[in-house]
């Protein structure tokens, strides 16, 4: 029995070992080594890589921009997803059509969606001249908001679906009780729906914060980090350090270890916050 269990689990174990555990060990070692793309490992040099990352002139702007982008995206995306979930809550043919319409963008890849909006935003091809916006990507602020619109379009249906699951788990008699107590629609939403939806919302927030902190495709394709490096995210900085210009794998590894640590801390805090509220 034990042997058989391991035999069936062996492919999983091999995959996890070769493509996950070993790379984690390599990246940890890289982060404390002088390791260039072309020359390979040239020995231990800690803490130089970490020092270089903190001294990089784009490091703090990238951290700041990533945080700003994460907060803006999470607030707007979850707010809209909640509204959409409330709209399509009942099932009927009409809401079926609405659900499909909201969900279709989430079948697209993030890269495809970014390419689509790249064409949608470019002066030569845009059909949006009637909005009277001079440039969608030309200023730092415009580039940020244009990207947020793309992300909201791509992911709103996905988060709507997750919240819909939460909404449908609320038993009908809770609403009935609220109605008998004379609660109006806003009160029902504020004091019944929202508290009971808290764990779904928290899960969406964790997913959304994690995804936004690791943003890459959309900025790589849409803004290339511009204008004037104003939309460089942390993951883009990792990519640039490793494969573009600096070709310094050690430094990129040090930054990715820092990102991993930040992500773990944020997730632990979010889980803890969630548990405290429930307890």
């Amino acid at each position, binding site marked *: 029995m*034990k042997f058989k*269990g391991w035999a069936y689990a062996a492919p999983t174990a091999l995959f996890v070992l070769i493509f996950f555990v070993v790379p984690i060990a390599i990246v940890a070692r890289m982060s404390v080594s002088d390791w260039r793309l072309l020359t390979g490992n040239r020995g231990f040099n800690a803490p130089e890589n970490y020092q270089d990352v903190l001294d990089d002139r784009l490091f703090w702007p990238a951290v700041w921009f990533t945080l700003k982008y994460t907060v803006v995206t999470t607030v707007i995306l979850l707010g809209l997803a909640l509204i959409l979930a409330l709209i399509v809550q009942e099932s009927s043919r009409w809401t079926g059509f609405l659900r499909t319409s909201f*969900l279709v*963008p989430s079948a697209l890849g993030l890269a495809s969606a970014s390419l689509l909006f790249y064409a949608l935003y470019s002066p030569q091809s845009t059909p949006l001249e009637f909005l009277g916006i001079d440039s969608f990507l030309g200023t730092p602020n415009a580039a940020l908001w244009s990207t947020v619109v793309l992300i909201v379009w791509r992911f709103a249906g996905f988060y709507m679906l997750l919240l819909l699951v939460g909404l449908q788990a609320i038993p009908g008699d809770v609403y009935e009780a609220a109605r008998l107590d004379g609660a109006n629609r806003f009160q029902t939403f504020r004091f019944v729906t929202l508290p009971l939806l808290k764990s779904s919302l928290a*899960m969406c927030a964790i997913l959304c914060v994690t995804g936004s902190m690791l943003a890459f495709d959309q900025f790589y394709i849409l803004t290339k980090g511009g204008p004037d490096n104003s939309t460089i995210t942390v*993951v883009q900085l990792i990519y640039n350090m490793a494969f573009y210009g600096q070709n310094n794998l050690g430094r990129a*590894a040090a930054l*990715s270890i820092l990102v*991993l640590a930040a992500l773990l801390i944020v997730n632990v805090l979010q889980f803890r916050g969630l548990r405290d509220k429930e307890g």
Partner: protein
Amino acid sequence: MFRTPQRVVTGGLALLFLFPLVWASLASVSPQAGTAQIDGWGFGNYQTLANYQAGIGQYLLNSTLVSLMTVLFTLTVSLLGGYAFAMFRFPGRDALFLVTLAILMVPYATLLIPLYVLLTELGMQNSLVGLALVLTMFQLPFATFMMRISFEAVPKELPESALVDGCGSFRALLHILVPAVRPGLITVGLFAFLAAWNDFITPLVLISDAEKAPLPLAVANMRQQVMGIVDFGATEAGVVVLAFPCILLFLVLQRHYVRGFMSGALKG
């Protein structure tokens, strides 16, 4: 439930979500200056795409191969793994399951830099097989989780009666359990396909040879051709070719797509 004004507002919202897709499809065949389609409607932009460098056929083939390999590897590994985690007790079972789920916690970028070095050592850097193996690893947390709960939902009597009848555990799996967990397999396969077809950063890092680029990478690279002048018509056509199979699969398998997210939601 829905009165007319509400229908107008919600319908307008739905159109807002559909608009970019409809626009891209129309723009890719409509006349536009600076593209291959200047006069009248037609497929000039698709022609440009077809003749771009190695030809769209090559990139479509690359994407198809990578996606099919990823689906195959993911289904095989997660079917066996899910069976092991759900039906057997063995030392290290919980630890292995947790480490598999932990893949979700680690950013792609953190893993791709060492994977680039590791695959070079293994002689698989710049290879579609190597790319598919890495994409499979990224799929494993969801796939293993999904297959484990699928096997756990199967009534225990089903495999037991098969074993009593003298089936080996492998034949029991193949003939009796696989049909029982088919919905789980469809969900896992669909997600693996969409993820592999659409992934961008993994081939960007691991594939250096333009001939071997999957479609998203090829379309993104295409924009930088011809002295910095972007052919938006060809880009729009590329988006349509990229999106079409995904939207088709989504519409056909919508129930499974929704189910997949819902069982994913159980984790939270």
